[in-house]
């Protein structure tokens, strides 16, 4: 995706792709409704917990505390995990992360890898890295397997194939799994995938998983799935590699009582994920590697404005509620994590490449209110616009128009004069001249009938001068 992003003019990146998604009105509305349905399920699930808002506040405080003490908690986690028999690796960036995985595979003469869902390995582009070196990597989450067959990136962090319709899944499975042509029955297709994946699980040498929560006091960690694929993927192969961002840490096991209640309700409206699997060291005769990845997280944790973006538990609720995401699709963002949170994380690392993302937002604030860990997402998106501008990546025309407007607004008489001129001039022109194709406002929208006088002019006439 990043290569495609580079081809588009920076200011056009999101708007251009979004317009393509909107152009297929039927698909756009279907996508919007599917995700709104998930948002409504979330509302029902959240409403069923009387202390919901208190849980959000607690989660926010626990994450704030953990980030402040992150170095100590990471060291505690490492020591405990080692004591349990795990090997702990530290990776400063994606390249180091992938090299560590490769090293483990080479040392074990492994060839086949099964992977449960991990946005972190997506972030590191681990699949292409391993495939180029001759390894077979099979994503075992159903949605991830679908996008993998189609050679696409996930468009959503919880629902990776939400942009694909069941008929299209049928075509993909017909091509790759030999299902009947034209078959689109979800149960039939799921059973085909299940049979196919079962064989992959049996053959695999290594299972890779992500990590939802790691616990500093025990050295254990939790992986949440709905399909049980992380469990099968770690129970069959002898080697388990768990890849986690350093921000996934929680101090105590009891903190899970807050986060597990929030996660699934916010993500899909379920009371809890079907499988919340706890791992404590390697299984007998097995090996467990834990890779702790930084990849820019330390830098973000030092930023007063953006550090709380690291509180994110990857529930996807901000995507489901975002009116822009629902109508532009995850791929319009060109990032591993799309939507509101992705529009902070990506430009925080590279403000030039992702400068259009903080502007792919109407600042409605729904993401902030839905976020289970109370990240002030829309406020950070606004601050990120400032950051983009401060670093000089705002497109010139936008900057110029704002400088000009700022100049006029500092001069009330000039402002009043130009306002009257503008209205007077526009009133003389035929409507179709005003609403031409070059006018971004007027392509689909009429201007209001322009009044002869501004309010300030009416006000002056209304009251006799004192």
């Amino acid at each position, binding site marked *: 995706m990043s290569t495609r992003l580079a081809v588009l003019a920076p200011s056009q990146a999101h708007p251009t792709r979004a*317009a393509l998604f909107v152009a297929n009105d039927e698909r756009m509305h279907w996508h919007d409704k599917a995700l709104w349905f998930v948002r409504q399920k979330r509302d029902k699930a959240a409403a069923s917990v009387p202390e919901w808002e208190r849980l959000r506040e607690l989660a926010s405080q626990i994450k704030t505390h953990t980030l402040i003490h992150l170095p100590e908690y990471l060291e505690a986690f490492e020591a405990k995990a080692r004591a349990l028999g795990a090997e702990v690796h530290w990776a400063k960036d994606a390249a180091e992360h992938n090299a560590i995985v490769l090293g483990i595979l080479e040392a074990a003469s492994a060839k086949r890898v099964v992977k449960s869902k991990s946005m972190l390995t997506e972030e590191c582009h681990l699949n292409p890295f391993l495939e180029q070196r001759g390894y077979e990597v099979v994503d075992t989450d159903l949605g991830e397997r679908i996008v993998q067959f189609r050679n696409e990136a996930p468009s959503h962090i919880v629902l990776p194939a939400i942009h694909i319709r069941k008929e299209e899944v049928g075509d993909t499975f017909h091509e790759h799994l030999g299902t009947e042509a034209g078959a689109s029955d979800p149960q039939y297709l799921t059973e085909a995938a299940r049979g196919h994946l079962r064989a992959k699980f049996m053959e695999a040498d290594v299972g890779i998983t992500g990590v939802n929560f790691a616990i500093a006091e025990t050295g254990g960690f939790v992986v949440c799935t709905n399909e049980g694929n992380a469990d099968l993927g770690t129970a069959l192969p002898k080697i388990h590699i768990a890849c986690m961002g350093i921000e996934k840490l929680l101090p105590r096991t009891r903190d899970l009582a807050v986060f597990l209640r929030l996660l699934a309700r916010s993500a899909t409206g379920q009371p809890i994920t079907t499988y919340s699997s706890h791992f404590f060291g390697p299984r007998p005769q097995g090996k467990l590697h834990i890779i702790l990845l930084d990849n820019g997280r330390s830098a973000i944790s030092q930023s007063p404005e953006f550090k709380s973006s690291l509180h994110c538990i990857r529930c996807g609720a901000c995507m489901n509620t975002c009116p822009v995401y629902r109508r532009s699709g995850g791929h319009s963002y060109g990032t591993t994590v799309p939507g509101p949170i992705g529009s902070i994380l990506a430009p925080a690392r590279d403000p030039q490449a992702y400068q259009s993302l903080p502007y792919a937002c109407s600042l409605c604030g729904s993401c902030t209110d839905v976020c289970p860990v109370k990240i002030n997402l*829309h406020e950070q998106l606004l601050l*990120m616009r400032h950051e983009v501008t401060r670093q000089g990546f705002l497109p010139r025309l936008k900057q110029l128009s704002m400088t000009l407007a700022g100049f006029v*607004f500092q001069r009330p008489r000039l402002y009043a004069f130009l306002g009257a001129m503008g209205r007077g001039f526009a009133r003389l022109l035929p409507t179709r001249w005003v609403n031409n194709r070059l006018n971004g406002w007027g392509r689909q929208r009429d201007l209001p009938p322009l009044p002869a006088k501004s309010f300030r002019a009416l006000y002056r006439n209304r009251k006799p001068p004192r």
Partner: protein
Amino acid sequence: MRVGLFIPCYVDQLYPDVALATLEVLESVGCEVEYPEAQTCCGQPMANTGCFAEAVPLARRFVATFAGFEYVVAPSGSCVAMVRSHYAELLHDDPSYKSLAPRVLDLSEFLVDVIGVEKLPVRPFAYRVGLHQSCHGLRELRIGRSSERMLENFNKTRRVLERMTGIEFTQLSRPDECCGFGGTFAVAEEAISCAMGNDRIADHEQAQSQVMTAGDMSCLMHLEGLIRRQKKPIAVLHVAQILAGRVPEIANV
């Protein structure tokens, strides 16, 4: 009570009747209202584009213009949110700003929290009204409860409108989804902006709203622009216009 009337720049230039209606409503509840002509724009377009440097002098001008008033009232949750919530990022601890900020209110919250709704004159408004929840009033000023938050339900804009006799609120399937205006977003992301607006309008159509209203004319300017282009039979009025007794132009009802 001496009230400074804060009129958003685009309302001053494009919707003078909304400003007049606000003035009339404030006077009808006994306020002594003044419109200082030194005001222009609160700086939100610049700030929301990330151009804080261009917004700072406008924030200073706003504070200097309105510092002497007991209250500052605007027919816009969005512009009030800019002043009350976001000037802090521009002016930081400036003492005259800090003393002014809590006294800058949107019309609905001023009427509910300071004046008391019972002071509002009772007027007839026998229409099916779709109340659009403007985001900044809802989620920045907390004029009402947003649907995401699991708190007791309340809505100050609805409370002031409930003073109108015969008013019937329509049931929207998405009670507080954004209309898609979003300032420069409306042009920069034109496709998404209009798609969002059209979906809001469709919701009001299925709910059979005769009149669409909101606390922010910017949302309504965008929605009305789409409605006019498509010649849909929905009238658009700002909350202040309804309170001031304006009559909607309704075709074929």
